[in-house]
Each structure stands twice: as C-alpha cells, then as structure tokens.
C-alpha cells in the first residue's frame, strides 16, 4: 500500500491571459489548487531597446525610453535625462526642475492608479478599476495640455523640457488635486477596506525584508516589506531634497509585514505623498526660460555613469557609456519590474492559483519594462 499521491499538473498561465498584465508566461506546477513551482518566462515583448539605443543619437533615445514603461513615461524620461545631465554636467534652471518634478509625480499618481485598479481587477472587483481610470484620464488630460501627447510624451529633454507649461497650468493642476484627494477615501471604502479584498490580500504572498533586498526588489514593493528606501529621499536627485514628504512603509496592518496588502497600501499612501509634493512644487514654481540649457548638440564626454531614480515601480537605473560621439556606446536600463518579477517564483510558491494572480498583481509589473 503506497501513499496516495496526487499527480502534479503543469499549467501555462499566459502568454495570453487576462491578468498577466501583458505578455508574460508563467509555467506553474500545480497540485490541485496549490501551486508548487512557478517559472516566469519573459521576452515576448522584447523590442531591443538597448540595441536600438546604440544606433540612434542621445536625444533619439528618449522616445524609446517612453516605450519601456509605458505607464510611467515621464519618470522614464526623467531618469534618462537626470543621468545624461550628470554625465554632461549640465545644471538646468530651477523652473525646469520644478516642472519635471510636477510631471513625474503626476505620472506616479497615474501609474499607481493603474496599478491599484488592475489589482482590483485581478481579485475580481471591476468597478474600482473604472473609477481609477476615470481619474487617470484627468491626469492624462493635463499631460496632453502640456505637451500634446497622452501616453508617450518625450517631454523631458536633456537640459530642459520640450514645452513650457501652459498659462493656466497651475489652476488646472490644483483643480485636479482638489478633485482627486477626496477620491482616495472613496477607493478605500469601496475596495481597500472591503473584507473580501482584505481576505484576499492580507497575509498573502509575504515578502520578508531580507529576501526583498536579496532579490533587488525596489520601490513600493520594497517599502511594503518595511524597508525604508526611497531614492528620492536617500539619494536625492533633481530637487527632491527641497520637498517635505514622508515615505509610507508597510506595517502589516491586517497581516504580516510585506504581504500583498502592504504593497497595495504603500501605493495608496504614496499617491497622497505625491499630491503633497505637487502642491509644494506648484507653490514655489519659479519663472524662467525652460529652453536655455538645452545643448545644441549632445556630445557627452567619454565616460560611464550609473544613476538610479525612483520610478513608480522602484529603482530605475540607467547605465550610460559614452565614447564621446553623439551616439551612445551603451545604454543599459535597470528596470525595477524585472527584479520584482524575478522574485515571484520565491514568494508565490505554495499559494493557491488565485493567490498567484493576486501576488502578481501586487508586484505591479509592466511587461514593456521587463522585456524592454
């Protein structure tokens, strides 16, 4: 008499699946509903960003960075131009810095709205998703007003920005913030504090802090595990050291520190902090010419640089090597979602199939950035 043994089944989630957030394939070994092993397969959206960059000039790389993390294009542009300016030792005017911070933080809100909305969708709540998209549209309207594009902006340039702010930008932006701030409470009532949602997320997919650091997880995912690390605070770039804001950390309010709920909750709190930053930035917005420091020809000196910035998904690093020509020798993008996804196999092991979807959603991956 042997022990009754269940057969294990190999299940392919994706590449076409409603909740893989793009084209991702998860090879899942399941025992009934329990998942015993997960192997992510990526590369379905590989567009050779790094190879492309070696064949175009420095300013032409910016439209390609847009398309890496298409949900937070402004932050991608920001990271690239900050790195380039450090390499070329350009000091941009204050107005440009303020505009960039406002745009980056607006885009952080937009990106988090998408992340939270799709997370609600992953656990089955449809309506919050549409509410959040409704508000995200308003942010995209602001971007359209500013630079004419809604999704892929190519707004920040090395040494400046492509368009100055429209005349009544401040009024519109403050109007949006006043509209948006109470909405966060509505989302919380509708989704966050919903008992079913708490049951689905609290204590699910716990990512302990040391594992998170070891896996290079960054951004809200890392802070959800309770590690106080935010590039904006700890390695301030641009003018983030001028603003007062807090770094929300996961506290394990309803379960263990580092569970899916904490990662979700950190994002909700970060939206509030972003609102704070935008309000301060709009208050201090100086006058000035935004085009004056844009170099005629971008020809950085020979050398290499690695710089990371805080994108909505985490530490977005650019490794740029210049050989003195107008074409980059090598551009490497260290994408935060890439490392976050690599940890999925570790944290989602032993959970149920439904939890795997919930954990994947809580990591907030964007496949465009993972595959580049």
């Amino acid at each position: 008499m042997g022990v009754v043994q269940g057969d294990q089944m190999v299940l392919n989630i994706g590449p076409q699946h409603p909740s893989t957030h793009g084209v991702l394939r998860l090879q899942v070994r399941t025992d009934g509903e329990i998942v015993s092993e997960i192997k992510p397969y990526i590369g379905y959206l590989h567009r050779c960003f790094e190879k492309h960059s070696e064949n175009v000039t420095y300013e032409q790389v910016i439209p390609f960075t847009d398309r890496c993390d298409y949900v937070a294009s402004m932050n991608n542009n920001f990271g690239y131009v900050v790195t380039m300016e450090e390499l070329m030792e350009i000091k941009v005017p204050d107005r440009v810095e303020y505009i960039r911070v406002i745009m980056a933080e607006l885009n952080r809100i937009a990106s988090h709205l998408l992340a939270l909305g799709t997370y609600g969708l992953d656990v089955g709540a449809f309506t919050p998703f549409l509410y959040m998209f409704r508000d995200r549209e308003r942010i995209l309207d602001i971007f359209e007003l500013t630079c004419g594009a809604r999704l892929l902006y190519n707004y920040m340039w090395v040494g400046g920005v492509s368009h100055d702010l429209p005349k009544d930008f401040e009024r519109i932006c403050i109007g949006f913030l006043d509209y948006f701030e109470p909405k966060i409470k509505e989302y919380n009532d509708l989704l966050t504090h919903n008992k079913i949602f708490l049951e689905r997320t609290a204590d699910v997919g716990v990512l302990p802090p040391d594992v998170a650091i070891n896996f290079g997880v960054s951004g809200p995912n890392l802070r959800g595990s309770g590690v106080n690390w935010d590039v904006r605070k700890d390695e301030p770039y641009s003018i983030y050291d001028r603003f007062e804001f807090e770094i929300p950390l996961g506290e394990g309010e309803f379960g263990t520190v580092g569970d899916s709920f904490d990662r979700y909750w950190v994002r909700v709190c970060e939206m509030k902090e972003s609102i704070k930053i935008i309000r301060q930035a709009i208050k201090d917005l100086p006058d000035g010419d935004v085009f004056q420091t844009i170099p005629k020809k971008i020809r950085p000196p020979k050398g290499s640089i690695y710089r990371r910035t805080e994108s909505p998904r985490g530490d977005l690093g650019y490794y740029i090597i210049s050989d003195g020509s107008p074409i980059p020798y090598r551009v490497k993008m260290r994408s935060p979602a890439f490392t976050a996804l690599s940890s999925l196999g570790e944290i989602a092991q032993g959970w149920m199939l439904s939890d795997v979807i919930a954990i994947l959603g809580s990591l907030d991956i964007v496949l465009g950035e993972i595959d580049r």
Partner: protein
Amino acid sequence: MTVDTLMNWFAKLGDFPELAFILAVLICAVPVFLFIAVYALVAIYGELKISSFMQDKVGPMGQGVGLHAGKWGLLQPVADALKLILKEDIIPTSADKKLFILAPFIVFIGAFIAFAALPFNQNIIIADMNIGIFYILAVSSLGVIGLIMAGWSSNNKWSLYGAMRSAAQIVSYEIPAALSIIVVIMLTGTLSMQGIIQHQSGFVWGILPNWIIFQNPFTFLAFFIFFISGVAECNRTPFDIPEAESELVAGAFTEYSGMRYAFFFLSEYANMFIVSGIAVTAFLGGWQSPIPGILNSPAWGLWWFMSKAMFLIFVMIWFRWTFPRLRVDQLMNVCWKGFTPIAMVNIFGVGIWHLMLG
C-alpha cells in the same frame, strides 16, 4: 395554466392520457422557454445598464434604430444574442465530442425544468406539486453535472479547474440553502409552493405583511443565508470562482463559443431567476401584495411576484459590480464555518421561537 388543467381539458376531448400528457407538457414548455429567452434579454440589458451606471458611464446608447444599439441601447441584448447565435460553433479537436455537445443542454435543462414549480401568481404554475420546493432544490443542482461534463470534455486545464471548483461550490452551498428552506417548511408545514405562499397572507406584528422573513429574527437571518447561498449557486460574484475571468479565463466555458455558450449564458440567468423565485416564494410572500388585503388579484399577483424577483436579481447584479471575488478555500470557509452552523442554529431558533411565542 397548470398541466393538470390542460390534461383535464384534453380528457374531455377523448381518452388518450399519454398523448394528453405529452401535449400538455409541450404546451406548457413553449411559453416557459420564450419567457426565459425574453427575461434573459431583459436581465442582460439590466446588467449592462446597471453596471454602467455604477461605473459612471451610460452603457449602450444610441440615437434610434439603425444607429448603434437603438434608443437607450435597447437593441444591445438582441445584438448580443444574434452575435452568439451567428458565431461559429467551434469544437476543439481533442475534445470529447459527445459530452462537449451535450453539456450545455444539460446545464440548461437543469435550470429549465425548475421553472415548472415556480408560482407566478395564484393560477400560473405549471405543476403545483405537493413537493414543489423540494423538487426545485433537487433539479436545480442537476446543472452541476453539465458543468462537470463541460469542463472535462473540453480537454482544457482551465475548464477542468472551473468545473471542479463549481462542483465543489454548488454542492457545498446546497446545504445552507436547504437548511434555510427547512425553516420555511417548519413554519408552513407544507412543501407545496402555493401552500407556502398561502400561509403568508395577512399581517404579522400588526403592520408588516405576514411574510416569513418578517415572522421572527431567525427567519430574517435565514432569508439572507438562503439568498447568499443562492448567489453562490448561480456562480456569480463574489462567488464566481468557477469562471473567474482573471484567474481561469472563463472556467468551464473557456472552449465554448456561439450557440453553446449562449446556452450556458441563458442558464446562468435562468438560475438567477429560480433562486430569486424560491426566495420570493419562501420568504417574501410570493405573489402576495406587500399591503395584505388589497391589490391581490391574479394580475397584480404576477406583478408582485415579478417585481420582487427582479429586485432580488438587481441585488445580485449590484453585488457583482461591487465586490471582489473570494478565493476557493475562503469560499468553502464561508460555507462550512459561516453559513452552515448559523443555518443549523437557525432551525433551533425558529423552532424555539415558534414554540414559545408562536
């Protein structure tokens, strides 16, 4: 319009009982089928509109027939139905063909024959059996077999997952539902649907209609347990794990398309109506008017029954567009650790209440 009346009428014409029976059943079946079809269109339209309103949009709209979906999008469900009928019917090569074809019909039959015992008003009930409510509970779980057949025969892992989940779910949630119905049977002392409704005439507590839900606090609880278990039996959010689209693509229906999928769709809505129908009959006074004594003619009875049922269907739709989905084990927890013990205690509670105060 009961089968019995028809058979008696046929008996007057001549002595052919078997043929009379078949004819009577057929004559009853056609209107029921038409009713389900029309009701499904209305329910789909309602679902589209209600969900849209809840999500800050207006749903299907149009500026008149021929443009888009007609006035207020009224033609949208018709277009949906047409699309489903005209779509190519795909049977996967590796599917078990016979079971694959059979499954949607079994699911539909399970929902369809349950309509036989639903009392739409004082007269319209196809068969007023003396075990009516028991019959409905029995046949409405027939659909599980069809779902498992669908999941198994599709030869698709997602379908299998969905089928297994839905089987476990439906079988489990039968228990609290049945336990809550026992409360009703205890109070009314009959299994006949019309008998249960007739028991609920008059007043209770002075002002409230004598519906079972208002008779004592335990029956009030029993109604909610029954209704939520019913929602679970219909596989609707927050209990829609069998077809959880973000996890299992479409569960047991993944491989179905066209007409066969339409049958699953139809039976889902039919099931919703049955659950609402039982809840209305057993707890909300069926075709009784909310103000006892007035507006109690058969025509008003139909109106009351339908409006009560439609309200419960609206609540189901409301649930669906508000809540996230439960996980499989949590679903079972809710059933076995939440509903079943409470429903058990409920039976005692109702019994004691009835003895002490009734």
